C-alpha cells in the first residue's frame, strides 16, 4: 500500500498515491498538460521541455512528466508565462524541423503539427536550420527520415528497453545529435528486426512505414491481374479507430470494403491461422509424444520474433516451429489450392496482405521459402495505416458500408484463428487443438484465461490428459530474455526444461499492438482491441481449428495430413543463424 499525499493543482486540493507524476495527477483535475516526448507506454525521457509547470514559491519550473507530486505542493499548470515558454519551445523545435507537413506521411496525424495548431503558431519566429541528412529506406519496412526527428527519444527507448533490440541509438551531440544505428550504418545492416514499434511511437514523420499503396493500386487497375487480399485478425479491431470507433470488430465491413476497392477475392488470414494451428499442434504432439525434436516448442508466427531469434538466440533454432506465419500460408494456398480449384493462372494472382505489422513487408522476400508456390507467395503487404489511406483515397464511406461475407474456401475461420491477433492467442488456439490431438478428446471449456492479458510474461500450467504442461507467453521482445534464459540454463546444465510450449510476439500486446497499427496506442486500447477479438471467438459456432469444416476440406482435398509431404513443402521453413550486424 503506497502512501497517499495531498497537494494542490491549480488551487484544487487532491490526494494521490506517492510517486504519481504531476502530469498524471493533473489529469484528475481535468488538465491535460501538453507534451511531445512523453508516451503512455514509456517512462518519461524529459527531452521536449514542453510539460513545464510551476510550484508556487519556487522560481524554477518543473517538468511535470517526470516530477512526482509531493506533499504540500501548490502546482500551477498554466499561466501566461508558462504558455509563452511552451510556445517558445515549440517554435524552437519548429525551427529545426522541415516545413513540409503537406507532403509528410504524418500530415494530420502528427503530434508536433497538432501542438503547433493548438498554440496558434502561424509564423516562423526563429530562422530555420536543417541538416542535410539522407533518408534510410534500407529495411523495406520502416523508413527513417532524421530531418523530421525531434529527438524525443521514444523510438530509442522502445528499441532498446521495450524491444531489447538496440538497433537505434543517439549519435553525436548538440545540434548534430541524431537517431541512427550505432556506428552510423544503415538500419538493414543493424540488429533491427523491423517490428515498427519506432514508427508506432514516433510523434512526427521521422519513422514511417514504407508506403506500398501504389503497388496495390497499380495491381488493382491491371486487367491482367487477379487481385486477392487477406486481412489479419488484428486489423479488424483497430481500423475503426481511424473512423472514430474503438474496440469494435469490423470484419464484415472490411470484406465489403475490400471488394469495393476492386479486389477479386477477399480472404481472411484467420483461416490460415487455423492451418497454422493444425501444423503447429501436430508438431507439438509429435515432440511431446515421440520426442523426435526437442521441447519446448516455440511459436513462429511473428517475423520480427523470427528475425530476433535468428540474430540473438540461434541456439534455440531446434525449438522453433517450422510452420510459416499465417499470411504466408494463405499466400501459398491462394496461388496453389485456390488457383487450381478455380482454374486461375497463379502467375496472374496478385496477393495483398493487410497486416498490423511492418515486419511482414520484409518477410515476404526474406528467403526462397517465401516463393513456395513457384511465385512470390505474397506480392504486397499493407499495414493498417496504409489501408486507411486507401479507403480515404477511394472515398469510401466506411460508416455506412454493409456487411458482406468472405470469399469461400480461404475465408471461414474458427474462433481460434481470430484470437491470433492478441498475445496468448496462438497459444490458446494451439492448446485447444493439441488437446484433441494428444488425448483424442474435445475440451469442455476452450478458454485459457491464464494466457490472456497484458502481463509481459505469462507462465501457467495446464493439463492435457494425464500430462501437466508448463507454458509461457511473452510479448514485447524485451520480455523474451527471461523465458529463454531459463530454457538456455536448463539446456546447458542438462536439467528438466522449464516449459513445454512458448509463444512469443514481438510487439507489446501481440499483433493488436503491432507496429503498423493506428497511432497513439495505449495499453487501454490494446486491451479493447484484444477484447473485440475474444468476443469474435466467443460468438463463433466453431471454436477450434481442427473442427473448422473448411480446414478439414483443405486437408482432404489438397494438403493430405498435417506435417505431410505437401504441407512440409508448402507450409514449413528452415531457420539459420544470421549476423547481428551485417558487415
Amino acid at each position, binding site marked *: 500500500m503506497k502512501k497517499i499525499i495531498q497537494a494542490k493543482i491549480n488551487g484544487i486540493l487532491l490526494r494521490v498515491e506517492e510517486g504519481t507524476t504531476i502530469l498524471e495527477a493533473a489529469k484528475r483535475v481535468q488538465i491535460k498538460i501538453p507534451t511531445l516526448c512523453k508516451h503512455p507506454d514509456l517512462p*518519461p*525521457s*524529459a*527531452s*521536449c*521541455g*514542453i510539460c*513545464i509547470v510551476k510550484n508556487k514559491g519556487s522560481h*524554477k*519550473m518543473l*517538468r511535470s*512528466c*517526470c*516530477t*512526482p507530486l509531493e506533499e504540500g505542493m501548490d502546482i500551477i499548470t498554466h499561466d501566461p508565462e508558462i504558455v*509563452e*515558454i*511552451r510556445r*517558445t*519551445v515549440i517554435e*524552437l*523545435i519548429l*525551427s*529545426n524541423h522541415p516545413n513540409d507537413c503537406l507532403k509528410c506521411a504524418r500530415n494530420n496525424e502528427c503530434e508536433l503539427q497538432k501542438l503547433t495548431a493548438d498554440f496558434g503558431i502561424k509564423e516562423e*519566429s*526563429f*530562422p530555420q*536550420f536543417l541538416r542535410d541528412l539522407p533518408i534510410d529506406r534500407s529495411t523495406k519496412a520502416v523508413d527513417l527520415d532524421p530531418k523530421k526527428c*525531434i*529527438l524525443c*527519444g521514444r523510438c530509442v527507448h522502445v528499441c532498446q528497453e521495450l524491444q531489447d533490440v538496440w538497433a537505434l*541509438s*543517439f549519435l*553525436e*551531440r*548538440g*545540434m*548534430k*545529435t541524431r537517431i541512427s544505428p550505432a556506428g552510423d550504418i544503415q538500419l538493414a545492416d543493424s540488429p533491427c528486426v523491423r517490428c515498427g514499434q519506432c514508427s508506432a511511437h514516433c510523434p512526427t514523420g521521422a519513422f514511417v512505414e514504407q508506403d506500398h499503396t501504389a503497388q496495390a493500386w497499380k495491381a488493382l487497375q491491371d486487367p491482367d491481374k487477379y487481385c486477392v487480399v487477406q486481412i489479419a485478425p488484428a486489423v479488424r479491431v483497430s481500423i475503426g479507430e481511424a473512423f472514430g470507433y474503438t474496440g469494435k470488430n469490423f470484419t464484415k465491413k472490411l470484406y465489403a470494403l475490400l471488394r469495393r476497392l476492386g479486389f477479386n477475392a477477399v480472404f481472411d488470414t484467420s483461416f490460415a491461422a487455423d492451418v497454422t494451428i493444425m501444423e503447429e499442434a501436430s508438431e507439438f504432439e509429435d515432440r511431446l509424444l515421440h520426442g523426435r525434436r526437442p521441447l519446448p516448442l516455440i511459436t513462429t508466427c511473428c517475423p520480427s520474433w523470427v528475425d530476433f531469434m535468428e540474430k540473438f538466440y540461434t541456439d534455440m533454432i531446434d525449438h522453433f516451429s517450422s510452420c510459416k506465419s499465417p499470411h504466408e500460408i494463405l499466400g501459398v494456398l491462394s496461388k496453389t489450392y485456390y488457383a487450381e480449384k478455380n482454374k486461375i493462372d497463379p502467375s496472374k494472382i496478385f496477393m495483398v496482405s493487410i497486416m498490423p505489422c511492418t515486419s511482414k513487408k520484409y518477410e515476404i522476400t526474406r528467403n526462397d521459402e517465401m516463393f513456395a508456390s513457384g511465385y512470390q507467395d505474397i506480392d504486397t503487404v499493407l499495414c493498417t495505416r496504409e489501408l486507411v489511406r486507401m479507403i480515404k483515397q477511394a472515398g469510401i464511406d466506411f460508416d455506412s458500408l454493409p456487411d458482406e461475407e468472405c470469399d469461400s474456401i480461404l475465408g471461414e475461420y474458427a474462433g481460434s484463428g481470430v484470437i491470433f491477433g492478441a498475445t496468448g492467442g496462438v497459444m490458446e488456439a494451439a492448446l485447444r487443438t493439441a488437446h484433441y490431438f494428444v488425448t483424442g478428446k474435445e475440451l469442455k471449456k476452450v478458454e485459457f484465461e491464464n494466457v490472456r492479458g497484458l502481463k509481459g510474461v505469462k507462465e501457467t500450467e495446464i493439463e492435457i490428459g494425464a500430462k501437466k504442461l508448463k507454458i509461457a507467453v511473452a510479448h514485447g521482445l524485451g520480455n523474451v530474455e527471461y523465458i529463454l534464459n531459463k530454457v538456455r540454463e536448463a539446456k546447458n546444465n542438462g536439467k528438466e526444461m522449464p516449459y513445454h510450449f512458448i509463444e512469443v510476439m514481438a510487439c507489446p500486446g501481440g499483433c493488436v499492438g503491432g507496429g503498423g497499427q493506428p497511432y497513439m496506442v495505449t495499453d487501454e486500447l490494446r486491451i479493447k482491441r484484444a477484447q473485440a477479438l475474444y468476443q469474435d471467438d466467443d460468438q463463433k459456432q466453431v471454436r477450434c481449428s481442427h473442427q473448422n469444416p473448411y480446414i478439414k476440406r483443405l486437408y482432404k482435398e489438397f494438403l493430405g495430413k498435417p506435417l505431410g509431404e505437401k504441407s512440409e513443402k508448402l507450409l514449413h521453413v528452415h531457420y539459420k543463424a544470421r549476423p547481428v550486424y551485417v558487415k
Partner: protein
Amino acid sequence: MYTKVILVKDTDLKREDKTREFYTHLLDYLRGSNLHSQIQVVRVADIGVYDKGLVIKILPDKIIYCNVQDSDIKRIVDSTLDQGKIIEDLVFKLKAKQHRLVLRNCGKINPESIEEYIACGGYLGLKKVLGELGQQKLIEEIKLSGIRGRGGAGYPTWMKWNFAREAASTEKFVICNADEGDPGAYMDRSILEGDPHSVVEGLIIAAFAIGAPKGYFYIRAEYPLAVERIHKAIKQAYDFGLLGQNILGSSFNLDIEIRLGAGAFVCGEETALISSIEGKRGTPHPRPPYPSVKGLWGKPTVINNVETLANIPVIISNGGKWFSQIGTQASKGTKVFAVTGKVKNSGLVEIAMGATLREIVMDICGGTLSGKPIKAVQTGGPSGGVIPEALLDTPVDYENLQKLGSIMGSGGMIVMDEDDCMVDIPKFYLGFCVEESCGKCAPCRIGGFQMLGYLKKISEGKGVADDLGQLRRLSLAMQKASLCGLGQTASNPVLSTLKYFEHEYNEHILNKRCPAGKCSNLVTYEIVEDKCKRCGLCVINCPVQAISGGKEEGYLIAQEKCIKCGRCFDVCKFKAISKK
C-alpha cells in the same frame, strides 16, 4: 652572517620602475652605517603588494612598508632595523589574504609521496572518523561545519550524505567528480596534481559516512597527470591499508576505481556522469530521484566535487565548529578561484568566503596586466555571468553572486578590461555550451543554437532592435524549460551582459560599432595622415592588398577590400593606423 633580509620592489604601475634606484640608495646607506654585512637587500620580481609605490618587506619579521621614499631610508634603518620599532605611517596592512585550507599542501609536499602527506597530518582525519566518530557523529560534524558543495550549486554536503546514509541498500557508491570542464577553471586539476591524497582521504571518509563499499574517481581524460597521481595515491593507500579490506584495522572496507571522462562537458552534471560510468551515453536524467537515493546502477550514490572532498580531512581534524567560523553566515569555509584573463597574476587564489571580488582581483592578483581599468569579472564559467567593475566590492558567497546574475560555479574567474567586448564574451560562452550540449532536450539544444545565431548576427553588425527581445525570450525558455544545469544556466552570460552592458549591444545594433574594437566586422582601420611616416610597412603586411598609395602622396586603406585582420594596426610603429 646575515640576520635580516630586505626585499625591495617598486609596485607603481604608472611610472618607470624605480626598484634599482632605491636598491642602490638603500645599499649605500647600509654600507655607510656598516650594516651591510648583517642585512641583505634583494630586488624581487613580485612582492605580493600592488600599486602601492615602492614596497619593502623585511624578513624574517615580515614587516611590509609601502609608498616608501628615499627620504624614509634613514628612519627605516635606524628605528626598524636597528631598534626593532615599527614605523606606523609606512606599514602596509594586508587587507586580503589568501586562506589556504584546500591548497594547504599544494606546493608544499611531494604529491607522489604518501609519507609526506601523512607527515602533514594526512589520514589522521580518517583515523579519527573510524576510531572515535562513527557515521552519525561524522555527519553531524560535517553539518556543523556548514560546508556546501564546491562544484557550483552549493548544496549542503551533509544533506547529500545523510540521504544516502538513510537509504536502505547494501550497495552504495561514492563518486569523486573530477570532470572539471569550465573554460578557465583548473582548481580541481591543481588539487589532484598537487595533493591527491587529500581527495582520496575525503572520498574514503565520504564512503564511510554513507556505508559505501565502492567508490569511483571520474576524471576527465584530458588531465593525464592528475590521473597518474590519483592512480599512484590509490595504490599507495592500498599498500598502507587505507583502502581495501579492514581499513586501519577497522571493519570498514572500500575499493576505489578510476573512470576516465571522454571529453563531454555535460558529464560533469551528476546524472550524466552516472550514465557515463555505467557505460551509457552521457546525457542527464530527470531528478528526482536524486542520486543520493537512486544513483549509480540504481543504488544510493554520493557525488562530491574534488574541492569539497579535499576540505573534508581538515574539517575532521580541526572540527566542524572551527570550519564554520571561516567564511560568511551562509557560505562557510574558503573557495579556490582560478583567476585568469587580463589579470596580472593569473593563478589559483584561495580566500575565505566573504572576501570581495576587488580584493581578489586587485589586492591578491595585482589588477590588470595592461594597467587598463577593469571592465568586468566573469565568474562561474559558461553557467555564470559578468559582474561589472562597479559591483566588485560584493563579498563572494553563493547567494551574493547569484543575486548579481552570476554564480559561484566551480571557481573560474576571468578578468576583463576595456578591450573585451560584451557581445563577444557571451558569444564565446554560449558557443561553448552549444558545442557541449548533449542534444537531449530541445530548449537547450535548439535554444542555445538560435541564441548564438543572434549574437553572431549582432557582432557582425547585422543585428536589428528586435534581436534583444528574442535573446531575452530565448533565455527565459532555456532557463525554465531545460532539463539540466547546463541548459538552465547557459543563457546567464547573455542575460548578465544584457543587464549591465545593454548599451554595448545597442552600439553594435544601432550604430554598427564595437566599442572594444573586438568584433572585426564592425571595426574600421584608417591611416592617420599626420602620424604616418610613409614607411610602407602596412602595405607590405596587408594580406589582401587593400592599402594603396606611395611615399609621395601617402597611403589609403580601401575599405571595401579590407578584411579587418588588424595586421596594419599591429605592425605600424607610429600608431598611425586608427581602429574605430
